[in-house]
């Protein structure tokens, strides 16, 4: 099984779209999520994100990412509810304003973050950087930097897993239920993770230079990324959706 952010093969409508279209779709949904103030509409955005995940054929991954965000959202929700004091008291010190604001924040977070992560799982990193260069005329070194940063996230997650496994074999008890104790155990692992990350980044930079990184121009890529009718239609639809979100 690949990591949650790794590319998932497929032949869905979203897989076949131009990478730039997918970026625009994800950004439109983000704009709608941040522009909208209606709780139901925000919940609808999250539902739309999940539908996009299902249509893309990455149902399992989509729900796995969703579950990850739910965990963060619960923490944010509780934090927000604890600190907002305005509005009518519902229970102890919890106010209705606090609950509504907390719900909006977590729905916005999920609504904006999910399409970006789904977009990464249905787009090859190489296509993403090449399309940014060919279509958006972004200088290759910037496109490469962006896509490399994205590509390295699952690499670092795997590396952290391997480090945790190595430390578990030494007797470090990561399965402790005490969150603070677990945090205390994980913190020293940042050092080997940082060291291996720096080494990996350094060897990648050397490898790229040796393969003529600075010789690459906009015309170096042979693959073209034309906009098809489906791309244009999707862009129009999602821009309209973003505008609708702002007006809500």
């Amino acid at each position, binding site marked *: *099984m690949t990591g949650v952010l790794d590319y998932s093969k497929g032949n869905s409508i979203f897989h076949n779209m131009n990478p730039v279209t997918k970026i625009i779709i994800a950004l439109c949904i983000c704009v709608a999520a941040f522009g909208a103030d209606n709780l139901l509409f925000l919940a609808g955005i999250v539902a739309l994100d999940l539908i996009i995940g299902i249509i893309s054929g990455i149902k399992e991954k989509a729900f796995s990412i969703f579950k990850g965000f739910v965990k963060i959202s619960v923490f944010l929700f509780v934090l927000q509810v604890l600190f907002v004091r305005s509005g009518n008291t519902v229970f102890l010190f919890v106010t209705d304003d606090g609950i509504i604001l907390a719900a909006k924040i977590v729905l916005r977070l999920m609504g904006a973050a999910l399409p970006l992560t789904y977009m990464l799982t249905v787009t090859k990193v190489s296509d993403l950087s090449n399309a940014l260069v060919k279509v958006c005329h972004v200088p290759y070194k910037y496109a490469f930097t962006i896509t490399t940063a994205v590509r390295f996230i699952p690499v670092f997650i795997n*590396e952290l897993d*391997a*480090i945790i*496994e*190595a*430390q*578990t*074999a*030494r*007797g*470090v*008890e990561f*399965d402790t239920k005490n969150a603070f104790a677990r945090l205390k155990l994980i913190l*020293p*692992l940042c*050092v*080997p993770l940082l*060291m*291996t990350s720096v*080494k990996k980044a350094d060897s990648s930079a050397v490898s790229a230079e040796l393969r003529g990184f600075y010789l690459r121009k906009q015309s170096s890529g042979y693959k073209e990324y034309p906009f098809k009718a489906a791309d244009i239609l999707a862009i129009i639809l999602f821009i309209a959706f973003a505008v609708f979100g702002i007006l809500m």
Partner: protein
Amino acid sequence: MIEFKNVYFQYPHGGASLKNIDFKVEKGEFVALVGENGAGKSTMLKLINGILKPINGDVVTAGFNTKNTKISQIAKHTGFLFQNPDRQICCQSVKEEIMFSLNLLNDMTAEEKEERAEKIINAFSLNPDENTFAMSRGEKQKTALASALASEPEVLILDEPTTGLDYRECTAIMDFVKKLNKEKNITVFMVCHDMEIVMDYADRVIALAQGEMVDDDTPENIFRKKDVLKKAYLLPPQITELASLLGGEFENCDSAEEILEVLKKQRKGEL
């Protein structure tokens, strides 16, 4: 010391699997696990220290059934040396690294820990204040091994301990492990791709192919079984291959000295 009882294991997402693995390693044995990439060697090591649990069958390490024992409990009796020491080393100095192991596993007084750390540092001729992140690969491997041995484990598990090391560093580490195995009767279970190392140091070889055990024998015997070598994609040590090709009286020679001895005897007309 290590026992696999009809073990079956498969990763949830497929990948390498182990089928019908059944063997027992006695205390003080030096066992090498060999086989091609993806044969299930690293999976087997993870089953030994309880990181992975068997789907069917049982794995018993140092008297503990891994199915119902915490990894930290098994870790008190096992030392694990990973292929990549960068994943293992997490403290800045050699002494801190060894103390990290001692603090994790043993209920010892501060003085006892200090004493144990000093003893192991001296045994490995390490500099206690040296920055672990600025060390060479060999030095890091040595530090990781010292750290694994600090708790005086009964079982030492080595996952390709000589990968990336030059001949000098490789023999230094393997000589030390062999010395511990002989003098302290520590059980060593090692995954290795270098058949010269296996021939020189191991007492017993378990060959794996596609998740199944294809043989369990002495290195001298296993490297002469052509069918096993073919199944497990193994290349025997050059000297064994040469002895095999020469045939006749040379057939059973396992070192250059033995071949020389046969030649001398032939010259004298004793053979």
